[in-house]
């Protein structure tokens, strides 16, 4: 017996430890669930941390109104299987209430509006800690994020005033109105996530596997046709076999050409890929060099 924990098991244990710390030290946590692969892993980790008990927090989904229908169906099935509580915070409602204003033009998206809805929901429910599925390997502003990350009472992240994070000793002290974001998957890479999904035999929304879809090309990326998009000059819809690497608002999430219809085939494609997940699929980060950093400062996921 070598008493060496394999890499994925060590990452899993680190994540479970953080989840239990947050559950123990905060009064009103919630788990942000997008229906994407990272948050599917989060739900499994919550089972590992708290079963046979109930999760000591509800699951919250910020619904942009522009989600893939497959993902919403998956969300409802998964939550029902787990027997846990789901809260849906809706961007539509924020717009209707005048809290957020719909963007216009061909590149309009509700991506940024989610922040308003998220922060409003945090206030309404009095949440003091939110679990998110973000990973440090996703993007360079995220590479500096703490596992337990402080947000002031405007929900803002100040990258220059982060609390030092030593060993596995998380400082969970906050004042009323402030909250923390907890990122159990901080140290996971995209490949770790896929390998874990395979190891745990976790189900995924169907859009993660190759399927025929109506798409159009923009800035070198493939986007799904839907009622929410306005085609620009020269943009032509066509049908091809694609899958998604991440799941976000369908207007800003790009698809990749693929014929991988099983988890094993997807893992093989990811291991061989030469483009990062965000670079390949997220228009929101292409806007400027510091797009993610700016959104994070405002309180984004």
């Amino acid at each position, binding site marked *: 017996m070598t008493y060496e924990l394999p890499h994925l098991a060590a990452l899993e244990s680190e994540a479970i430890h953080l989840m239990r710390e947050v559950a*123990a030290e905060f009064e009103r946590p919630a788990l942000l669930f997008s229906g994407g692969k990272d948050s599917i892993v989060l739900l499994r980790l919550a089972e590992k*941390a708290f079963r046979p008990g109930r999760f000591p927090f509800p699951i919250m989904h910020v619904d942009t109104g522009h989600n893939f229908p497959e993902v919403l169906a998956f969300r409802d099935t998964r939550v029902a299987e787990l027997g846990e509580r789901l809260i849906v915070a809706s961007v539509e409602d924020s717009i209707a209430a005048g809290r957020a204003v719909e963007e216009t033009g061909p590149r309009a998206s509700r991506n940024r509006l989610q922040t308003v809805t998220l922060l409003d929901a945090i206030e309404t429910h009095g949440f003091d800690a939110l679990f998110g599925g973000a990973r440090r390997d996703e993007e360079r502003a995220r590479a500096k994020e703490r596992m337990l990350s402080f947000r002031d009472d405007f929900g803002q992240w100040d990258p220059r005033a982060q609390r030092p994070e030593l060993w596995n000793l998380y400082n969970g002290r906050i004042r009323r109105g402030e909250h923390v974001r907890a990122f159990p998957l901080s140290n996971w890479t995209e490949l770790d996530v896929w390998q874990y999904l395979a190891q745990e035999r976790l189900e995924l929304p169907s859009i993660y596997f190759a399927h025929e879809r109506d798409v159009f090309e923009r800035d070198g990326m493939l986007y799904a046709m839907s009622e929410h998009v306005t085609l620009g000059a020269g943009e032509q819809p066509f049908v091809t076999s694609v899958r998604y690497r991440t799941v976000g608002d369908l207007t800003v999430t790009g698809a990749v050409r693929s014929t991988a219809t099983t988890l094993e085939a997807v893992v093989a494609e990811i291991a061989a890929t030469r483009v990062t997940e965000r670079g390949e699929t997220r228009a929101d980060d292409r806007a400027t060099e*510091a797009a993610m950093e700016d959104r994070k400062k405002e309180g984004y996921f």
Partner: protein
Amino acid sequence: MRIVTAGSVDDGKSTLIGRLLFDSKEILADQLAHLEDVSARRGLDTVDLALLTDGLRAEREQGITIDVAYRYFATARRKFILADCPGHVQYTRNMVTGASTADVAIVLVDAREGPTEQTRRHTFLASLLGIRHVVFAINKMDLVDWDEGVFERIERELDAFTTRLEIPDLAFIPVSALHGDNVVERSAHTPWYGGSPLLWYLEHLHVASDRNLIDVRFPVQYVVRPRTDAHHDYRGYAGQVSGGVLKPGDDVLVLPSGAASTIARLETFDGDVAEAFPPMSITLHLADDLDVSRGDLICRPGNHPQAARELDAMICWMSEAPVRPGARLAIKQTTRTGRAILDDLRYRLDVNTLHRDEDARELALNDIGRVTLRLSAPLMVDPYRRNRATGSFILVDEARNDTVAGGMILGPAEGAEAAGAA
């Protein structure tokens, strides 16, 4: 495996990390295109791999790294998590943060300059934080004509310095981060060097035995009590093993109460396990119905941590506001929190010379000192050298809620002086 990198500004740390990621094929096409683009805009004729590690906008604008950034790369043999710590003079706290979870430290040295004050500081911090493997990458060897004499002189100097520190495993590798020599591939320029390239060294390093598998330590983190019909009497103690190997049937003690029991089961979501060892997260069941809660610690009857009301410890101060004896702070150690008063500042350590200033009246940002802390309630502690998990703590400012210090326990302060301080 977790790596921390340290070096002074311009030693070539960013280039080295870029090289490791690049040569291990971890830089992907879109990132490379971005690097080429930015390099061209800055008028460089080769791709600047250092740009890869620039994280936040403020850092890019100032051209320096200000905070620890985490990088990930993998080879066929191993996956690596790398904490990239900026080498700026005032950023001891970043190095301490990055080093707190590292298995190995890479310290960059510019071959033209040899070891500097900062090299000594970083090496000392690595040893203070209990890192057992330190590898010195003697960089820019191309600029000293691959001179074996230069390399040997630096090695001798560092050897002499490190005999005063407790680092069990040292390595010295002559590299050129810019050209890739001895980073991933063995260099043709260093026939006199008999060791391995950096990546080979990292891939083959044996770190599993660095964990404490002797002293059973299980801090209770969370009590799982479903209170449902199906699990009416269920009571599980969830936590992460901090030391030793636990087995069902083992006799145990629960501290601080001292109540005795036996391990009934070691449960995980995937079923019961026959053994649990660090850093596994498990749910432990005792044979007896005891009142155990978060912050309690489970150990073996013949091997327990010391219960301390006063701590003798080294701390690294991380706040802009200096601290003086008399300060009241919150303390967190394992899963226990309490309050502490800084009773005594025994000395401040000059991390460049290792000189102890016993007349020091305060610790300022980035200072390291040996202190005595009086605690509101006893903590169950081990010396940090023996166990990083039960020997470490953080101090928190109770008014501002900031983390203001990281601490390494030497032992309880009552009675006999703990020996073996840095």
